[in-house]
């Protein structure tokens, strides 16, 4: 398809505004799972508190329960039993809360991932063709796979972890403050150092991570290109050169991946040991304070404080280890939102397509298929309704078009196709033949001029109805994963098996389909990879035939079919299209010769038009092309 390979979303660059992306992501999750999240927050709170009760029990176990028993002659296990029972209850609540919030988070995570995919997909269906021209398919795919995957880790693990840690940090911090302000300051300083180092390594590692993503993209791109061209590589004995180039890219990836992973790996140990050092420093400072008696810190309090110091460092370490997955998730979320924000295909049409039957010389809307169609034109001014019979009258009036505003590919195209005519376009690749047909069905919108369909400006027709009225067999054949029957039925979802077979017969596809292992139920995969190019085209024609459209556009629909088969297909199509308008693009003479009007295109302009005989008589471009000796002489 002509059209510039435009901007690609760059991978491996820094995120513009992580805060904004994070907020939006939270909003997105909360939209469907707000209540879930609120419950999760409460449950995390409960579980943290229950755990704190447990920790406190262990701290007091010896002093409050065991020590008194040691001094009494008749040890009373009653208080201990009571305490154990109480703590068991707390534990039970904690376990239940932890299980519940994890269980709920599965729904939140998987549900959000499903929603992200569904939203991406349904939004993608509404994007204009231009979007697909300007974005590489690999990039679009990677939004569904890699970017969505980064969210999984983030929502299911990072989010609860961060929240859990935050609550722990706050509660421990308050306890520390109560015990000793100077020691809290010491602990805080050490935490600062920890955060500083984490930030530094995390910053560095996210740089290498982004570099790694970039190198990975390069390696993937090279692999994709070479795997696609592997047969050419073989034919040219280019294997060694290929290996050399691959090794270079592969080594780059190894180096950046090595560094990125190294930095991630060391964040944990570094923080853990800094935590240990923090512990020692507190012990020494606290010891000095307690022994000198300046701050009124008792030794017992110092012991408790040291325990808190330990439980303060742990969550900080846990959070810092989530840092990278958060950075990656933010980059992924940004690309996901970018795609969701892409402008949809605009459709301001209000004229719709309906089935009609004639009653007393007037067209009346019919709920059933009647073989006749009409445009239901509801006038905006007075809401009166007109029915205009669909005939397939297509007029281009002074149409200018370019895929970009600065480069026109069609200039001042004037064209009229009368109902029932077969109109052919001939001309070189890139002359604008396919472009013209893409304008009729509004894959693209024109810059200047008017296109009228049965006298109605195509801009006023609802796109879906416009396209429903046009059957198109495209230049590039695409089939879908599914049975042969499903693929033909794609043209008319409620078609009966008989209709499917009839369409296949019309396209002369019935013969080869019956020879397939499971006939009509043979499953096609990978865009019909197990069929030949010609067989795929025959199926595409059958698919268009079953739709039984009022107007048909055939864009090089028979280019890979041999001439003998083509003639049979052609006869069938001619029968089908009798009385209906057909647009044909072909470079084979036999395909276009019997057209009612042949348009010769050159560089986006129609330079000649007329029947085969008229054009031959003109001895112009068509004549030159036809005789095939013009330029050579």
């Amino acid at each position, binding site marked *: 398809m002509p059209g510039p390979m435009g901007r690609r979303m760059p991978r491996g660059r820094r995120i513009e505004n992580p805060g904004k992306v994070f907020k939006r992501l939270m909003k997105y999750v909360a939209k469907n799972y707000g209540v879930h999240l609120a419950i999760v927050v409460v449950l995390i709170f409960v579980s943290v508190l229950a755990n704190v009760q447990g920790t406190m*029990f262990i701290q007091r176990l010896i002093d409050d329960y*065991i020590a008194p028993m040691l001094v009494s002659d008749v*040890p009373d296990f009653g208080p201990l039993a009571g305490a*154990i029972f109480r703590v*068991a209850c707390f534990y039970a609540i904690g*376990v239940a809360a932890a*299980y519940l919030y*994890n*269980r709920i988070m599965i729904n939140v995570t998987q549900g959000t991932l499903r929603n992200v995919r569904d939203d991406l*997909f*349904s939004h*993608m269906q509404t994007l204009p*063709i231009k979007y697909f021209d300007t974005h590489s398919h690999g990039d679009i795919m990677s939004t569904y796979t890699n970017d969505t995957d980064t969210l999984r880790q983030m929502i299911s693990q990072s989010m609860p972890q961060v929240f859990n840690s935050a609550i722990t940090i706050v509660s421990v911090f308050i306890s520390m403050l109560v015990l000793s302000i100077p020691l809290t300051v010491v602990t805080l300083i050490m935490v600062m150092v920890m955060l500083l180092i984490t930030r530094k390594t995390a910053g560095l590692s996210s740089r290498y991570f982004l570099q790694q993503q970039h190198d990975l993209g390069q390696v*993937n791109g090279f*692999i994709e*290109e070479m*795997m696609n061209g*592997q047969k*050419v*590589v*073989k*034919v*040219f004995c*280019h*294997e*060694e050169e*290929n290996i050399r180039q691959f090794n270079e890219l*592969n*080594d780059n990836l190894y180096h950046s*991946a*090595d560094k990125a*992973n*190294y930095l*991630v*790996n060391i964040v*944990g140990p570094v923080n*853990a*040991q800094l935590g240990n*050092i923090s512990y*020692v420093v507190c012990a020494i400072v606290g*010891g000095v304070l307690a022994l000198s008696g300046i701050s009124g810190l008792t030794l017992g309090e110092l*012991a408790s404080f040291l325990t808190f110091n330990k439980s303060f460092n742990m969550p900080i370490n846990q959070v810092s280890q989530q840092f990278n997955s958060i950075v990656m998730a933010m980059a992924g979320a940004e690309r996901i939102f970018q795609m969701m924000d892409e402008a949809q295909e605009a459709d301001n049409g209000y004229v719709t397509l309906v089935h009609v039957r004639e009653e007393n010389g007037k067209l009346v809307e019919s709920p059933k298929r009647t073989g006749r169609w009409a445009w239901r034109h509801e006038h905006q001014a007075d809401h009166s309704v007109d029915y205009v019979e669909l005939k397939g009258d297509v007029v281009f009036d002074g149409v200018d078009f370019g895929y970009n505003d600065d480069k026109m590919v069609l200039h001042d195209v004037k064209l009229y196709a009368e109902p029932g005519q077969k109109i052919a376009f001939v001309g*070189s*690749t*890139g*002359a604008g033949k396919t472009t013209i047909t893409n304008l009729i069905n509004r894959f693209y919108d024109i810059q200047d001029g008017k296109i009228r369909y049965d006298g109605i400006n195509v801009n006023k027709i609802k796109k879906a109805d416009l*396209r429903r009225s046009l059957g198109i067999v495209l230049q590039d054949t695409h089939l879908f994963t599914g049975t042969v029957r499903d693929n033909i039925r794609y043209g008319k*979802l409620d078609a009966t098996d008989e209709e499917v077979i009839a369409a296949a017969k019309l396209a002369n596809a019935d013969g080869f389909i019956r020879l397939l292992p499971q006939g009509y139920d043979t499953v096609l995969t990978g*865009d019909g990879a197990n069929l*030949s190019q010609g067989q795929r085209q025959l199926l595409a024609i059958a698919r268009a035939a079953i739709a039984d459209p009022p107007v048909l556009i055939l864009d090089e629909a028979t280019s890979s079919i*041999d*001439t*003998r*088969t083509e003639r049979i297909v052609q006869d069938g199509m001619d029968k089908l299209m009798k009385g209906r308008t057909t647009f044909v693009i072909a*470079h084979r003479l036999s395909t276009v010769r019997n057209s009612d009007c042949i348009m010769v295109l050159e*560089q986006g302009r129609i330079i000649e038009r007329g029947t085969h005989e008229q054009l031959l008589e003109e001895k112009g*471009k068509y004549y030159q*092309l036809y005789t*095939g000796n*013009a330029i050579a002489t």
Partner: protein
Amino acid sequence: MIKTLAAQIGEFKKESILTPVFMILEVIFETLIPFLMASIIDDGVEAGNMQHIYIVGGLMIVMALLGLYSGIMGGKYGARASTGFARNLRRAMFENIQTFSFSNLDKFSTAGLVTRLTTDVTNIQMAYQMILRMCFRAPISMICAMAMAFFINAELASIYLIAVILLAIVLFFLIKRAMKYFQMAFPKYDELNASVQENVSAIRVVKAYVREDYETSKFKKASQGIYDIFLKAEKNVVLNMPVMQFTVYSCILLISWIGARLIVQDVLKTGELMSLLAYCMNILMNLMMISMIFVMMSMSIASAKRVSEVLCEKSDLVNPKEPVHEIPDGRIEFKNVDFSYYGDNDKAVLHDINLKIKAGETIGIIGGTGSAKTSLVNLISRLYDVTSGSVMVGGRDVREYDMESLRDQVAVVLQKNVLFSGTILDNLRWGDENATEEECRRVCRLACADEFIDKMPDGYNTYIEQGGTNVSGGQKQRLCIARALLKKPKVLILDDSTSAVDTATDAKIRRAFAQEIPDTTKLIIAQRVSSVENADRIIVMDDGRINGFGTHEELLENNEIYREVYESQTSGGGDFDEKAGEE
């Protein structure tokens, strides 16, 4: 499978061994530090012994630094070993793919190969790092803690042993169930992604048939299916958590209760009870970790299988023991050739082919879709081996030649041809990497590619996008022909290579061939009669057999298929294309 993969660890054996060593060291320091911590409190703070705090604190800092060092080294070597292993895997696969024959390539889909080289390798890399860093660390840490516990009090420690065994059994069943669902989920997930891929590339069909809503509802159904199955899997995984917490807490309470009794009976000291409780968490956390490793490993097994499939695939075409490097001339002969893609004669696509082509002859090949024209010529440069019979070039069986020499001398311009990202010159030099710009210009003149290249702003240095998307079909075909000509081959095969080139240019290219490379044997497959009618002789293929072989006139006279094709296309130009649009 493991053996195949392990062979690729290669130069990273040292790192692969050092990683667990350092991880174990880290564990040892990790186990020792709580001792020192306890000692600071018990003997230092509580006793008011500042001296003790200094000494033990100093010792602890040393330990911490050593722990830090081992942690950092473990991280460093772990990263290096796993990323290096991944690099080697990619390289080995890529190199092996380069040796694949066409039939090997047919076996794997392009997308399949790409996934194996990318996603699957990444999965293995992650799993390998996990194994190196945790596989030894977790069990050893657990054993250390267990040993310590038994050392303190065997009776109490046996509670742990029972707990660990019970927990291990429960975890095993939970994970097994989860794995069952995960294994069901991953292929579905791949399918979902494949359907997105399909939708993206067929978006015009979707829009032309107004099937957006249909596709969306199809997708939503699939995505809901994945949601359901992942939910089932994760539900089992998440059960690990309460089971494990329940065990930990039961242990703590049991030990507190029994421990208190033992203390009262003066069998156990208070400090010992505290240590026992500290180890509780350690033991069970590590067990949890081991179960996680288990999950990760079994998830990556599918990837490992797919990677080793590529590594184990052997090219089914091998060079002869004493290969002949020189091809004397472009004579071609087919002797009783049968050929089937699957090596069994029932599904043969070529039947009993006998042909003799003289050096320097121009041969046209014509026939309907699926008549095996391409299969016929693919045998000449030994892209596939015959099932029976023999194909000879220059008087020798192609299986006697060195494959590289053969393919250098027998140039094929494939039907599905590809240009690569790079300049036009880069692309041309695939034919001969040492070709001068002069030579490149010459072959472009022959292939009539010079006219459009000269008009490009950067001429021969124009950058071709991946897949050649910025040149038209006809231009691409001419560049591909020029690229093949640069090899100066003895046999040149054009497989429908001028279908997008207009008739006049097509004729001009053929005239240039006749004048400039008269000694090269030329085989031209075409749909158009005009492309072959001037050939010395024409082969008419029908359903895998030679239906006719002779000059244009002879065939018109006595070959029905040829006559029919000829008449349907009439004399003169059968096509309109290319030429008109180019200035």
